[in-house]
């Protein structure tokens, strides 16, 4: 697989009150952004644990994006 074809699979942990709403706003305003992020909505960024992140990598995600 060449690098240009590589589509990273990224897991996003988004805070319901901040980043999730920002992503929503970006969508409503029709901004274009890469579709590689699969989002998990958490009620607060503080809810995220070391275990979540490690598990995400163990399941093979190429990156983890935490948005507060």
């Amino acid at each position: 697989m060449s690098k240009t074809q590589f589509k990273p699979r990224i897991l996003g942990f988004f805070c319901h009150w901040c980043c999730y709403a920002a992503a929503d706003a970006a969508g409503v305003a029709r901004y274009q952004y890469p579709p590689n992020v699969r989002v998990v909505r958490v009620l607060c960024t503080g809810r995220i644990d070391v275990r979540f992140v490690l598990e995400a990598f163990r399941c093979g995600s190429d990156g983890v994006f935490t948005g507060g």
Partner: protein
Amino acid sequence: MAETCRQVLKDCGVNPERLALEWASAAEGPRFVELITDYVRRITALGPLGEGAGEPGWDVLATRLEAAVKAAGVPKVRTAYGTFAKKMHQEGHYTGDAIEDGVSSKVFPTFRQERLLLEVRDCLREGPKAISDLVVVTGAGEEELSGILSAFEKKGLASDTGSGWVLKGE
């Protein structure tokens, strides 16, 4: 949390830059787009997990990460994590350097020790292994591993058969 993750990921051989922690308020749609676009570009440049510069192959990473996930739930590690967090709140030092030092001296050693214990046990479960095999899989030094193995031997969990280490009673 992020600092602990970064140190553990680095220890497992994953580029810590794969983990990002960013802030965008509810009103910052354009900023969010910028952050995500930038981040995806960085990851694309790094390549798939296990194929980035300096990263071991996916097989090795999978065993290491599996053990790390389990280690993250071990009470000893949770206690180390909690005690450090409490101490940080009491002292009120929240600078990046203070957190980095604290994690690397208080949380990370316990975490690494538990990961290696779990990983060695998982590896031996698959069949007899020589120390040199374990070095490749776990990424730990030979001395460290022989310490773990002799601890296992003392507890009667494993023994050296000459051709490799095996778990007893399984």
